[in-house]
């Protein structure tokens, strides 16, 4: 049943994400054409400049929408299908409440990753070709390696080998954060839904409360790491320990959020 729920949610969310994704790619192509025109045609063309400005503004707005929408759509879908009138359909399906949460969470994370990929593709469209070469040269200068024998690729590869544990931890942390951020909203909406009125407002207040609690925990982690830091410990190990602690905290709080959300949907559902 998890597969069926995933498929249903993937389709339901897709109709919200796809127009944004298509919009970003379309405007990236248009923007690129405009850039090419601007370099080949006279800069004096007022119409071209205005058009370029307008398209750039639209492009930036769509990029912002995609960045924000990644998780927002997932949270909206969860709230709408579980706690509003649609909840009468969702919550009477012969499936476990945990399957409902997991399917929506997986789809949310997947589309958030798609959002980032689409942004990367649009970025590539913008700088592909000679613009990409210019950008890479810029990077070489920034990193101060333009005069050395090693290429940028060698530089990146050597960094990966030297810092593989750190990079692995960062990668796992990024993935865990995607799940964690969505779960924090889920639990806030689940708790907020238990109230009899002003549920959404209460959910937002609860979310802000959870973020504040996390700030205290983060401060605690910082103090703990500072206490752990001895003179003979390498800086890279300090970073790894810090990342591992943050990862552990995120996993534990994420699981708590999941189980609380599940418990509320299972036993304390409060549909109007």
């Amino acid at each position, binding site marked *: *049943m998890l597969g*069926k729920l995933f498929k249903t949610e993937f389709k339901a969310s897709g109709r919200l994400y796809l127009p944004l994704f298509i919009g970003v790619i379309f405007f990236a192509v248009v923007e690129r054409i405009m850039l090419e025109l601007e370099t080949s045609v006279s800069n004096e063309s007022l119409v071209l400049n205005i058009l370029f400005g307008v398209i750039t503004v639209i492009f930036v707005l769509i990029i912002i929408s995609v960045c924000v929408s990644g998780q927002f759509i997932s949270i909206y879908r969860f709230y709408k299908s579980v706690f509003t009138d649609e909840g009468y359909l969702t919550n009477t399906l012969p*499936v476990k409440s945990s399957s409902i949460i997991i399917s929506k969470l997986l789809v949310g994370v997947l589309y958030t990753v798609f959002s980032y990929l689409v942004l990367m593709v649009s970025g590539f469209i913008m700088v592909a070709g000679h613009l990409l070469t210019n950008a890479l040269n810029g990077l070489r200068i920034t990193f101060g390696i333009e005069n050395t024998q090693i290429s940028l690729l060698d530089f990146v590869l050597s960094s990966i080998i030297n810092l593989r544990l750190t990079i692995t931890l960062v990668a796992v942390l990024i993935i865990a954060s995607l799940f964690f951020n969505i779960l924090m909203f889920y639990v806030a909406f689940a708790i907020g839904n238990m109230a009899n009125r002003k549920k959404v407002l209460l959910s937002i207040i609860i979310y802000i409360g959870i973020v504040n609690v996390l700030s205290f925990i983060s401060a605690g982690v910082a103090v703990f790491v500072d206490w752990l830091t001895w003179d003979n410990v390498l800086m890279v190990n300090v970073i790894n320990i810090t990342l591992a602690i943050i990862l552990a905290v995120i996993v534990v709080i994420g699981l708590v959020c999941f189980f609380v959300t599940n418990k509320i949907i299972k036993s304390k559902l409060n549909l109007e």
Partner: protein
Amino acid sequence: MSEILKCTGLTKKYGSLVALNNLDLSVNKGQIIGLLGPNGSGKTTLIKLIAGLLKQNSGELTVNGEKIGINTKKIVSYLPERTYIPDWMRVVDIIRMFENFYEDFNLEKVKTMLDNLGIKFNQRIKAMSKGTKEKLQLILVMSREAQLYLLDEPIAGVDPAARDYILRTIITNYNPEAAVIISTHLIQDIETVLDDVIMIQNGNLKIHKTVDEIREESGKSVDELFREVFRC
């Protein structure tokens, strides 16, 4: 006749408000039951508990001998008082969803009923009137070969002609292995299709009798008895 629904000492509270108070109830297969009571009497709460949308504070509730859960949701077909079909869907999308999740969904039945009520497969839910959405929901719910149908106000929002069709649908789908619980205020309209009547007030069971018993004992119709019992 075997028992499909059993409540023992069923109590549900919303804070300090007691919605259902120590309710004992038993429903057998093969019956069409009218669940009647004034506003706020606990009818919808009882239906939501059976559908698995709420959890009782105390007492036992079983459907086909099982506690409420995935197995009971497989055999309970629930029509809420709300329209729950997502607006972005077309008729065909919600039919596919029912087909995917309910093993007892009968596609032939749904096709016939959609045809009878003039609802097209590719019609958008967003463009439908409230009444048409309610008809579609009822079609979906009645197209399942369920063992217990819970219909919460199934005829309140539709025109009298559709009301007749819906009642005919309920009777036509009569199955000796299934029970139908209908909650409504429009008693006169459904009285002829009922076998049993359950009247509740302030969460307490007031009357649980067959329609024939009511007529024989009080010499009144169900509608008349309701007006007498719940006189304001």
